[in-house]
């Protein structure tokens, strides 16, 4: 399996961050950064990472299954995450999520047919004082109203 030169360089650098013989430590960063490029945690990708770190594919699988940001199935190009945890809920997070569901016609962890957008109801993402909060991929949006969410969603381009 081949990666872009940038990602290869990142992987090569990552390996040097950890004590000799403990390169397994690079596993989660490799999966996270790799997922951005590969699109999801495919079997091929898991096997490749396993090979590079001297793990069995099952050992990688164990880790992938644990973390909520590692997706075996591809999410949309724009992954819209709406927080409904307490602080956001107190300021309309749950209603905002419902609004997103209707607007996109998607449910929790569902992807639009064209693969452009996916939706997820997420747990607290550290924006409680500026609630309700939405993340599109890694970009934060604070104090989001339904209208603002519409604008954000309409701006998601192919």
């Amino acid at each position, binding site marked *: 399996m081949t990666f872009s030169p940038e990602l290869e360089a990142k992987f090569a650098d990552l390996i040097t961050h950890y004590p000799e013989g403990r390169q397994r430590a690079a596993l989660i960063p490799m999966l996270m950064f790799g997922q951005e490029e590969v699109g999801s945690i495919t079997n091929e990708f898991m096997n490749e990472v396993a090979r590079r770190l001297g793990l069995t594919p099952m050992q990688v699988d164990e880790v992938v299954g644990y973390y909520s940001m590692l997706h075996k199935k591809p999410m949309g190009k724009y992954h819209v995450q709406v927080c409904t945890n307490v602080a956001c809920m107190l300021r309309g997070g749950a209603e905002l999520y419902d609004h997103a569901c209707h607007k996109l016609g998607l449910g929790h962890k569902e992807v639009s047919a064209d693969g452009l957008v996916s939706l997820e109801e997420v747990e607290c993402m550290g924006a*409680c004082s500026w609630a309700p909060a939405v993340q599109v991929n890694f970009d934060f949006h604070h104090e989001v109203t339904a209208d603002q969410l519409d604008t954000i969603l309409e701006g998601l381009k192919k």
Partner: protein
Amino acid sequence: MKLFNEPSPLETRIISFRFGLENSASIDTYLANDGYQALRKALAMTPDDIINEVKASNLRGRGGAGFPTGMKWSFVPRASEKPKYIVVNADESEPGTCKDRLLIQHDPHQLIEGCLLGALAVGAKKGWVYIRGEYNYLIHIMDKAIAEAYKHGYLGKNIGGTDFSFDLYTHTGAGAYECGEESALLESLEGKRGVPRIRPPFPAVSGAFQSPTLLNNVETFSSVPAILRMGGQAYADLGVPKSGGTRLVCMSGHVNKPGVYEVPLGFPMMKFINEIGGGVWKGRALKAVIPGGSSSPLLKAEECDIPMDYDSIAKAGSMLGSGGLMVMDETTDMVKVALRIMRFYQHESCGWCIPCREGTTWLKKMLQRVSDGHGQTRDIDLIGDLAQNMMGRTFCPLGDAAAMPTIAIVKKYRNEFEEYVARNPFAAPELVSIA
């Protein structure tokens, strides 16, 4: 970077005073504003001197447990065959908490300097900042700051012309609240599932890669440069006895001016809400406050007239925890709050131990049913009972964190649960025993 909320004149800005300065994350801004002064001072001190200064400051861990920081630093063995490490807990996932994010976003060098001071104190040569996966943008900010620090000789070999060397790296999480728990974080750092470790040994003795490790929260490390600059005693004096200094409190929920504000420990909670937060929104009355993140039992309005320090809040039956203060007005539906909190813990339970894995699931299902209007009277006691059965029995404190708020809500707002049950047309009447 722009501030997310306006600062308040009532704040005491010791570790957040650079927030909002032009290019606050850059090393130039940092250097122009007392940056790396503490390091200069510490390079001339012995490790014991540094630790004693931290002890004198009465600084307590800002990650949640509030453990005295100086004492923790003194637990790291002086002599060790294995290398020693620094680990910064930037997993910040406790609902209601959003301060570590700001500390890295606005002032990453303060954190780097804090790590250097920790490294000097315990003799560490390497460290990692474990940043939750959702804070991807902070990794870029932190990496950039680290690169700057290397360029200016504040990281790497022979720092400040001495024989002190230190390397610092970022490390990303991938979505798991449990990885904020220190031993689970270390597992995750090593590339494994975020399941906590059996303790003892504690990280100070056997932490990252089974080596002695100094692990603290972002804010804890970020507070140390100020302590060394102003002196431990002066820092301690800002707060109250046993809770030294200032801390960032994240105000959220039903207030007019939610935001992250730095106040001295012991700052009155009602003053914080009313004067800094501008009071409860929409002219409504205060109903309850969650004082320290969703793991802390909520306080009813009448219980909130207390100073915000570790001991006072503990006396009121809750915790200062991570400093996530959530305000609820009179319209708040406590059944929904209990449900949402339990949904969170059920989602985040790592699954290792039975009481937490099964307890959170059972409780979530029951609370969902009650909230959907299908509750029975006996459910209310059962909810309290099950939460009680989780308390103190789980492998790590996440189980307690799920149980404590539930127990408090059911106890303090039982009437609201009863109202839900009363609306269920199929609710069975209370069984009367015929002896």
